[in-house]
């Protein structure tokens, strides 16, 4: 380490050495002091807006924002003097005076940053006039709920929507006490540029932006004796769920999760990875078909519903690039309510299909009319990782000490290729494994295709398969997706196959993941999925035995007419409020 890059300072009299550029808040962490913060988020630009991190720095007349101020050599910081306490507590009191606190009935009860701060500062009774106005909750879509009364105007949602997704569906409006964090003209999210990715619900520190809660719907079905309630769990849930129960980030808790789901009362516990294997198989087949028959290129994945929303809303002219293959969740539910129902002799309408997803856009996807029949949806309810945590807590399960358990047969069967679907690059890698084998008749020399792994926003590679020299790209976050789409629109995009996931890191960083999700946690979850793949017996989707059986008995072959009927879907440009 170069000496000049290190800085010495004191916090509350204790010496600490940090890299140049470290902020006071981060330096204090090294001393195990958590300076209160609200607008600060480790993955976001500095906002320095809530001011609750104000601390005293010797020689400065005013307090400085610890989240935003870089340490300097010889700096002396105090985080616990009377002025600091008066100020931090004062700011909290100011926030509370404008906060409609009804914690007991708030979705964030128990994991709300504001609640934690109030308990830390021992705010026992209000000393300021309560000035909160009544504002209406907005819920005009299946995914997102916005309760502006609870908003602390930290701007985290605005940053993620703009800097990560490039959407800017939500922003500031007005000024002074009239400042609002809102969609333009306070329209419902469905009417705006929002694609329901849910990233804002992950970063919101309070109960202002949350997902629509469907856990009650699930419990109602479980209590209904006529229903067979069958659950599928997405690959990325099993590597994120543990975070909420105090396990290290990225712990693999697949078997405990299965056990918990049984205890909650699901009749069958299946794996979305099976659906993922099907999606891969169909998508690989579709890619080969497009290649061989010179159809619309490049092909992009379509398993991410926020990405699909993005294309339908913002690039309606490019819809044909989307793979017509259904997402793993929807493909799974389609098979569940047809082939599986037939096999098990259950009337499809008596099956209640629940998906546990890392995503809130899946709630929207489940309500797409084309993903169901006669007004019945293939997927009856989607709950997120956060929703599952709530159910586990409701039953009172001691998750960490739970006996491990296995998925049910037959749709609990899956391959390592299905597992890596949950990370950016995973779909590409899985599809390549299958396409390679089909085109060359040989196994891919090495199954682990590293150029598509990692957290970089846009990864490109060229793979030679048979006579084809495939140009591929792997993209995550919609801001990066827009870069690719803008090129594509003007014909400057010579890729053949693009994988796009809306959320940073893919589903492991999804909008339905625990609110403690950060890029650092996401990366650990990515490694965990690759670990699951490595230790799987089967690692190529088309090898999945129940999948083979399905094709043999029911669908003939990948890409067949029957397969198209059941496993493929269509997309539609969205109508706009004003069309010029």
């Amino acid at each position, binding site marked *: 380490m170069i000496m000049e890059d290190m800085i010495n300072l004191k916090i509350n009299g204790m010496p600490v050495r940090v890299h140049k550029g470290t902020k006071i808040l981060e330096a204090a962490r090294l001393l195990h002091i958590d300076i209160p913060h609200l607008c600060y988020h480790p993955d976001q630009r500095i906002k320095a807006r809530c001011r609750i991190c104000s601390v005293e720095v010797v020689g400065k007349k005013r307090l400085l924002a610890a989240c935003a101020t870089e340490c300097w050599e010889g700096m002396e910081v105090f985080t616990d003097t009377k002025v600091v306490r008066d100020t931090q507590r004062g700011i909290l009191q100011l926030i509370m005076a404008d906060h409609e606190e009804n914690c007991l009935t708030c979705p964030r009860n128990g994991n709300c940053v504001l609640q934690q701060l109030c308990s830390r500062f021992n705010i026992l009774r209000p000393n300021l006039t309560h000035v909160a106005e009544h504002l209406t909750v907005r819920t005009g879509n299946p995914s997102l709920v916005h309760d502006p009364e609870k908003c602390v105007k930290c701007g985290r949602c605005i940053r993620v929507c703009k800097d990560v997704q490039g959407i800017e*569906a939500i922003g500031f409006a*007005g000024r002074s006490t009239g400042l609002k964090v809102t969609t333009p003209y306070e329209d419902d999210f469905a009417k705006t540029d929002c694609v329901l990715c849910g990233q804002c619900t992950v970063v919101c520190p309070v109960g202002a932006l949350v997902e629509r809660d469907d856990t009650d719907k699930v419990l109602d079905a479980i209590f209904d004796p006529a229903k067979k309630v069958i659950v599928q769990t997405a690959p990325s849930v099993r590597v994120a769920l543990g975070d909420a129960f105090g396990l290290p980030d990225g712990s693999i808790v697949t078997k405990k999760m299965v056990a918990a789901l049984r205890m909650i009362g699901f009749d069958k516990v299946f794996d979305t990875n099976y659906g993922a294997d099907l999606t891969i198989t169909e998508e690989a087949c579709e890619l080969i078909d497009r290649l061989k028959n010179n159809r619309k290129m490049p092909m992009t994945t379509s398993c991410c519903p926020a990405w699909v929303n993005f294309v339908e809303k913002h690039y309606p002219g490019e819809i044909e690039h989307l793979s017509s293959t259904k997402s793993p969740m929807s493909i799974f539910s389609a098979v569940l309510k047809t082939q599986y129902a037939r096999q098990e002799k259950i009337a499809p309408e008596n099956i209640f299909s629940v998906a546990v997803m890392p995503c809130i856009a899946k709630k929207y996807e489940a309500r797409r009319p084309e993903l169901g029949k006669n007004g019945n949806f293939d997927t009856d309810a989607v709950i997120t990782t956060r929703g599952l945590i709530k159910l586990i807590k409701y039953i009172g399960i001691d998750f960490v000490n739970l006996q491990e358990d296995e998925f049910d047969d037959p749709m609990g069967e899956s391959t390592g290729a299905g597992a890596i679907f949950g990370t950016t690059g995973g779909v590409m890698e899985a599809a390549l494994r299958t396409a390679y084998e089909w085109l060359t008749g040989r196994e891919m020399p090495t199954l682990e295709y590293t150029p598509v792994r990692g957290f970089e926003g846009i990864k490109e590679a060229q793979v030679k398969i048979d006579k084809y020299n495939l140009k591929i790209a792997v993209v995550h976050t919609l801001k990066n997706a827009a870069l690719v789409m803008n090129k594509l629109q003007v014909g400057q995009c010579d890729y053949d196959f693009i994988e796009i996931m809306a959320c940073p890191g893919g589903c492991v960083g999804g909008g339905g993941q625990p609110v403690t999700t950060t890029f650092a946690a996401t990366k650990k979850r990515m490694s965990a999925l690759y670990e699951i793949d490595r230790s799987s017996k089967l690692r190529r989707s088309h090898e999945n035995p129940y999948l083979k059986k399905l094709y043999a008995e029911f669908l003939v072959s990948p890409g067949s007419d029957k397969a198209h009927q059941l496993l493929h879907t269509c997309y539609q440009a969205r109508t706009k409020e004003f069309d010029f």
Partner: protein
Amino acid sequence: MIEDSGKFDLNDELKTQIETILDNHCHDFTQIVGILLDVQEQISQHYIPKIAAFYIADKLPIKLSAIYDCITFYDALSDKPRGRYPIEVCDSVACKVNDNGFLLETLKELLGIDFGTVTYDGRFTIEKVSCFGACDRAPAVKINKIVYGPLKTREQVRDLLKQFV
């Protein structure tokens, strides 16, 4: 009550006017504040109808939320229709201590309207604004960029209103 801006008709003439304004600003989205001020001036009720905001967002590489933020942030921009002659009455301290209360009351009485309403003929609205630097003419009002004041008597107010037909 002030009419809902959703009903505003964005006709071709206005579209061309907006295009011209965008040209004048070189389609430079960083000039959005100036663009909005210019568009607002083209509209007789001195506001930015929702549909016009959508139209501008469509034409420039800027998101609607950023435009909405500007419209709601800046006092000089309005998302609600105003009178053809919006009477901006200074409500800051120098005018207040020179009895702008009398001025406000007189205006309300003579026009028969309150804040947030338009006269029946669509001519006037009364708005309270912050100091516009005419404190040497306190109590002052500003109507379409021009300052009038001091307005201390009923006659002065009446004479002022007569100028706007």
